[in-house]
């Protein structure tokens, strides 16, 4: 038994309710974007709970904008990343990170997941012009994974100290990788100019 097994609705499982909409949107998006969509994982076939689109980096912005404006997925619930360096398939392709977006339609509450594959040291343009709320999310991803966002106005560390070395959520970062600073974090006076 796994996520593919339809579990009762006490956990809010919506495959039956939203399944047709998901399939319809997936085929429509495939027609428009063609090869820019590397793969689509549909719930039931793959162990995921919502449709997961793997989109090429170059078309990622266009893709999320289309979802936001045409398909009304205007609410960004979450933006994060995963480190796939220990995954064999990703290692073959040279992929290090997956950038993960969770979008929601505020009217129908249908959700969708978008993944962008990134190589090590690869940068991606910022998403601030689409959702200003991604500002801090991108800062957190930079802080934790070291993924850089081109054009971000203020790409600083957000949770860790400014003097911290390394990126804690990478798989090669040790669990007890303490760094202790005896003086308070310096403030950047530029920020208020």
């Amino acid at each position: 038994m796994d996520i593919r097994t339809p579990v009762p609705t006490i956990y809010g499982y919506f495959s039956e309710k939203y399944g047709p909409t998901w399939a319809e949107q997936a085929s429509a998006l495939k027609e428009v974007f063609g090869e820019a969509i590397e793969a689509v994982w549909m719930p039931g076939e793959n162990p995921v709970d919502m449709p997961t689109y793997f989109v090429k980096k170059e078309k990622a912005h266009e893709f999320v904008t289309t979802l936001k404006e045409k398909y009304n997925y205007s609410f960004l619930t979450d933006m994060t990343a995963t480190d796939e360096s220990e995954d064999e398939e990703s290692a073959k392709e040279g992929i290090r990170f997956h950038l993960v977006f969770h979008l929601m339609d505020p009217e129908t509450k249908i959700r969708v997941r978008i993944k962008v594959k990134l190589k090590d040291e690869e940068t991606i343009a910022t998403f601030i012009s689409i959702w200003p709320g991604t500002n801090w999310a991108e800062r957190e991803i930079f802080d934790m994974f070291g993924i850089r966002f081109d054009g971000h106005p203020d790409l600083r560390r957000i949770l860790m100290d400014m003097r911290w070395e390394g990126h804690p959520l990478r798989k090669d970062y040790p669990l007890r990788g303490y760094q202790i600073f005896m003086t308070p974090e310096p403030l950047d006076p530029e920020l208020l100019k």
Partner: protein
Amino acid sequence: MSDSKFKNDVPLDIARWGFPGKFDVTIKKDSDDLFEDSKMLVNIGPTHPAMHGAFRCMAKLNGETIEKSYCEFGYTHRAKEKLGENRTYHQFIVYTDRLNYCSALVNNVTYAMAVERMMGIQVPERAVWIRMMAAEIARVIDHLICIGINAVDLGAFSYFVYGYHQREKAYTLIEQLCGARLTTSYTRIGGLMSDAPEGWENGVKEWVKETRGVIHELDRLLTENRIWLNRTKEVAVFNKEQCLLYGFTGPNARAAGVNIDLRRDQPSMFYDKVEFEVPIAQVGDVFDRYFVRVEEIKQSLNIIAQCADRLKPGPIWAEDKRTRIPEKDVVYNTMEGLIHHFKFFMNGFDVPKGEAYTAFEASNGELGFYIVSKGGPKAHRMRIRGPSFWHYQGLDPMIQGEYIGDLVAALGSINVIAGELDR
């Protein structure tokens, strides 16, 4: 507040977010300011009585108006997401308490749901009703703290004490349930730590009745108070469009007219079997955020009363051998039980390969657990989507052009919890 007080409204460029003129932000110029354009830097926090947690806000003032600000946090960062990858699913339960520590039970319930959903486990009916009651009691506590502290910051101390009295009683009910008051760790994957004691629901019903009276009293004390209205109406407005762009959820978004409540729209547990309403306001100022919370307490009390009526004796554990913690008498008296116990706590249980994002309406907004499992007893990625992270990001644009005194009101009204923000 009338507009006549602010004669020279100056448009402010918010290029810092890359959106010049995107939102209509203006500086209210105080006509009483003798020194025109007197600039001053004010640092509030990390440990300031008005901040309610370790975070910091630097503000550049023009007279008394905030011209520019930026917020810093991370002082209580405990690497929960890293720990989630290095602890078994059972061991991670205790860390979820420390997310939003004002309503720890909601976090427990959401996390248990997230893992159970990945494993395809259904918990028995009694456990679900108890979980719902626990979550709603925690929501009432959280809202009482939020509105109480918001009122204290603006000078209404007695209001806070009324609320805290009920909060203490609620904590006693939670203590009867799980032995702890603040860090509950009550749920287990596939069940509950312990059954509710006999007659617990009667105590809850009494508390609900009492709290309804207190909420009515609180309502009369503050909601139409002139000083309160002057301090909160049309202060720190965050409208519907901004809420959607900045990822606002929960009462803060509903105060601006975003009609989303996951309890109603994506009913998990038995929320589709209870009757409640979702309060919505339109303006999105401090008063609306306060008022939506007051109304939500009333609705939560209704839900608790309905759950207490339907609570029937029965099992509290899903009979799934993977996650079922063996009973103590089995552990102490049989060899198989001892081995089972040992294997469970030392090795944990395997969660099948897959990924799921499970969201639940926590007291502050959408709390989501995005778990990626590659098989095995530990998660590959344990992402926690805390609502406070997104709310605190909205504070910067929210207080642009407001008075420095209103910063305190704005911060209290969005109810940022440091534990959930820093994770």
